[in-house]
């Protein structure tokens, strides 16, 4: 089949095309608007925000809110800005994404290439885990982390995120490996490669697109998570979202919206970066994997 090409055989007239571009641009505007509001207000002095039109462009441009959010804003007792929490997040997200992706890949590999009795049932069980509401796991999870000696630590957080991301990563990889030629695995077996060698040398190097999908999904979810980060972290392992929340949600203090927005954009930068850098492969990965056409 001649699929996979980026073009379509559908033909459109000039008027239709103009309308089409118009609609697309309108939607682009719709998607950009809230972000634009954030950006605009992050470069305004606070008085302009509380005193006037929040949708207007700044009369006085200032980058102080950015500096403040990053380095000097009061997050807790110390005016540290978001900076130190950034590293806490990185220390949590990188291993959690890596482990859940690798485990998901291994699970997908086993479930498609080394099938055994009840494997579909097991997969169903894993998939259903995607739907568990996080509110109900908070207390028992805390108990278990405590028993395991992982309470209030980054490894504990990593464990939690790995557990609740596994369902998705397994789903993605399973769908992807389903169409990976089984003959390759057989050829490697004849060549004498074992279970892990086949995975490491054969499947993993060909999994680029689906790794991208899995990493984007996991990175976004873990980076943006607040509930687990707040509940299971200690004073020295609180992630960025908790800090951002502290910056934004102060209850009885003065609200510096411009700093809030700057902080929010700063906190979102890594995920945005991941989307923009890896986004190109995203549709391709979805195409190869999660959506079987």
């Amino acid at each position, binding site marked *: 089949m001649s699929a996979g090409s980026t073009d379509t055989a559908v033909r459109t007239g000039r008027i239709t095309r103009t309308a089409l571009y118009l609609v697309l641009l309108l939607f682009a505007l719709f998607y950009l608007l809230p972000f634009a509001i954030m950006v605009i207000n992050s470069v305004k002095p606070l008085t302009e925000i509380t005193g006037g039109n929040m949708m207007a462009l700044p009369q006085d441009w200032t980058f102080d809110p950015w500096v403040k959010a990053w380095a000097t804003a009061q997050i807790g007792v110390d005016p540290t800005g978001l900076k130190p929490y950034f590293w806490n997040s990185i220390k949590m997200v990188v291993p959690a994404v890596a482990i859940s992706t690798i485990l998901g890949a291994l699970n997908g590999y086993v479930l498609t290439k080394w099938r055994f009795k009840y494997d579909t049932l097991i997969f169903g069980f894993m998939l259903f885990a995607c739907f568990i509401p996080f509110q109900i796991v908070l207390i028992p999870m805390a108990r278990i982390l405590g028993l395991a000696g992982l309470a209030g630590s980054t490894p504990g957080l990593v464990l939690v995120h790995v557990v609740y991301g596994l369902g998705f990563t397994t789903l993605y990889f399973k769908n992807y490996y389903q169409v990976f030629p089984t*003959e*390759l695995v*057989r050829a490697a*077996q*004849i*060549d004498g*490669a074992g279970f892990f060698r086949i995975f490491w*040398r*054969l499947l993993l190097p*060909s999994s680029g697109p689906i790794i991208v999908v899995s990493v984007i999904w996991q990175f976004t979810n873990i980076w943006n998570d607040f509930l687990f980060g707040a509940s299971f972290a200690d004073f020295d392992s609180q992630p960025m979202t908790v800090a951002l929340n502290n910056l934004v949600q102060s209850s009885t203090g003065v609200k510096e919206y411009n700093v809030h927005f700057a902080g929010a954009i700063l906190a979102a930068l890594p995920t945005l970066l991941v989307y923009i850098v890896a986004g190109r492969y995203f549709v391709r990965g979805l195409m190869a994997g999660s959506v079987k056409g």
Partner: protein
Amino acid sequence: MSFLTIDNATKSYGSVEVLHRVDIDVQEGEFLVLVGPSGCGKSTLLNMIAGLEDITSGTISIKGKSMNGVHPSNRDIAMVFQSYALYPNMSVAKNITFGLEMHKVPKAERETALRDVAKLLQIEPLLDRKPGQLSGGQRQRVAMGRALVRNPDVFLFDEPLSNLDAKLRVDMRTEIKKLHQKLGTTIVYVTHDQIEAMTLSTRIAVMNGGFIQQLGTPKEIYDTPANLFVATFMGSPSMNLIPVKILEENGGLVAETTNGLGETIKLPFAAPPTGLKDYVGRTITLGLRAEALTDPDGADSKAVNLVTVKNRVIVMEPAGSDTFVMTEFGGQDCNARMRADVQVAPGEDVDFTINMDKVVAFDPETEDRIV
């Protein structure tokens, strides 16, 4: 004792038996081809030999040693897959030496082996490329190289040429043939292309529905098919099958049927199979290859018993090297292979010569050949 023995092997998936009590002996240096329609169990059998599928019952042994439960990599076999199954992320060189690396062959030895194989297959300039950058024929050769480099006891090929275009296929077929003649290794080869089966094999196993229908040399299979299935499955175009009535005339046997003009015609046998006598007065199925039904000038000059009858041309297909002409015997469409230069046209009535040396007879009920 034979080299590769498949003894009473069956294979079931769950409650479905897809291979039934298969017995095959392969001698050292033999080129055994497995043919049969899609889904008949060819790949399954090959995978069982390779150790990629378990054997439900029976044994497979190589050099007298049972291979049941032996890991594929310890069986001293190499396999070439239909899709080639080249590792897409490795260079051609890595693809070829991967198996050696897995078997812990030292690097220097691997290099030498690689160079030898690359030279043999003329893929030296391709060694650094990735499989994605190769043409179909080149890929096929790399897949072969990966198998060759291991220098195994047995080669298994699963439809290695079916992805190639017609021209390349013919070339690669010849190369495989040459290679087999040069190396003398034992080969088991799956295909559903009959020409490939005929030209490459020393013996052919025709399979259907998990049963071996006939196991024999290409000539046996082609000229004396064991039953109607083998007769129609092998050969292109397919063997013409004509319902005829056996009569005894002048002490000999004669097959009576009709031509496309509605006339009754009689085809005398020169050397009928002994069993045919029992069918006198009954209707049997006469098998006639297209090349045994031809124009008078195209008939085999060495043939003993040629019968010429008039018949009507239904369709004519010039194919360059030959002309295929369709006509009708006993109410059945029959293909005749005539010379390229023959001058006939649809609707015309022309002479057809039947080479009665080549006809075979089948019992219409059991579908077995009458011997």
